[in-house]
């Protein structure tokens, strides 16, 4: 009698535990046959960035959604930070690892000065822009965690093919970010970078 009353609760508990472990990968990788290890340049919200760091393929971590707990691990974060100068900064940060060696993690970033009025409506101003980054108008960052190496400010070029955030509710917005870039850190180069993400105000874009 006691067993039968416990059984439904036990099954429900087991089901909850199973669901807690359920995840979904929101990253789509379409291999570029001409550049080994890289994904194609796309604007279809594949949620990844790939590039060569010193000729070795590097890829952002997959975007993973965990059910019930509701958490999402993002491969890209975009944040606007207030400064005491005339301009604020907009920073992009990609986290990932060398292909075939997921323990060799790291981060690639871009910091751009933006007006203090910069918000999701002016995010669109980046679209179609090719920027030559020379450290006076922004800089790239590179941090290879397992090498304990933080490189200095990098120069380079970035082209934003798509940079769009649309309002989809009160203080909620979502959109697309895609493009290509190269960066030079003197001792190491980041080449053939191509990125394609769905972005939104929920977690991975902070434009306050």
């Amino acid at each position, binding site marked *: 009698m006691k067993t039968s009353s416990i059984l439904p609760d036990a099954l429900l508990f087991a089901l909850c535990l199973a669901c807690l472990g359920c995840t979904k990968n929101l990253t789509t990788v379409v291999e570029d*046959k001409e550049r080994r290890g890289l994904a*194609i*340049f796309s*604007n279809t919200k594949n949620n990844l960035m790939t590039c060569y760091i010193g000729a070795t393929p590097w890829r952002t971590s997959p975007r993973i959604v965990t059910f019930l707990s509701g958490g999402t691990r993002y491969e890209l974060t975009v944040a606007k930070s207030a400064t005491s100068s005339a301009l604020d900064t907009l920073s992009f940060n990609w986290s990932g690892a060398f292909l075939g060696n997921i323990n060799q993690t790291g981060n690639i970033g871009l910091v751009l000065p933006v007006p203090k009025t910069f918000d999701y409506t002016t995010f669109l101003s980046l679209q179609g822009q090719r920027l030559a980054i020379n450290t006076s108008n922004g800089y790239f960052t590179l941090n290879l965690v397992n090498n304990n190496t933080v490189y200095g400010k990098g120069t380079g070029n*970035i*082209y934003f093919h798509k940079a769009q955030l649309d309002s989809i509710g009160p203080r909620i917005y979502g959109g697309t970010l895609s493009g*290509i870039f*190269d960066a030079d850190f003197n001792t190491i180069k980041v080449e*053939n970078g*191509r990125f394609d993400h769905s972005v939104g105000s929920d977690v991975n874009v902070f434009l306050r």
Partner: protein
Amino acid sequence: MKKWLLILPLLLIVFGSSAQLYIEPIAGYGTDLNNKLPGFNLLVTGVQLEKKTLSGAGWLFRFDVDYGTAAKSSDSSFTTNAALPVFAPADKSIRPVLYNFSTGLRLKAVKLNKTNHLLALLYAGVSWQKFNVDYTYRKSDYSILNPDINRDVLGIFLSGGIEYMHEYANGRFFADALISTPPAKKDFSPSTFRFSAPLTFTVGYSFIISKKITK
């Protein structure tokens, strides 16, 4: 290669010695109903065997290769190199090749006169479709946005159509119009093209290779 050897017993069963047999080279033209790309045409070449029965129906065993002409178009490529224009077109060429292996039935539909007939054709088989994509662009500097990639698929297909046939003393001339389904396989990859569903117009000639007929 060994998989193809499994077909031999099937051939022996279907085209056994006590049958009226024809061998029929086929050639023609095809267009792809599943793709609207300009220049997507097919040159059809093949051969089939027919085992004629007393009822007048014929069992067919067909192998054909459809060579596609190159469908040419243009995609967009972009560069970060400040010395070059940010955008440049990338010339694209998609060339399909289809290998079809099928068995079917040839059924007499209308007898126009003693030597001229209209027939119905039904086939079921396996199609291996390959699409080769080539781009011409400045690869060292530019990246193509959403490029097509080489693709291939192996799947079951069905086809059907009509045939006009004229009988001669020692052979038969025929002209076919056939519509085929694309291979039955889910298409996941993002592409500007889909797997082919050909509409073909072919002509052929039946050479008799055995006059015996099944009792």
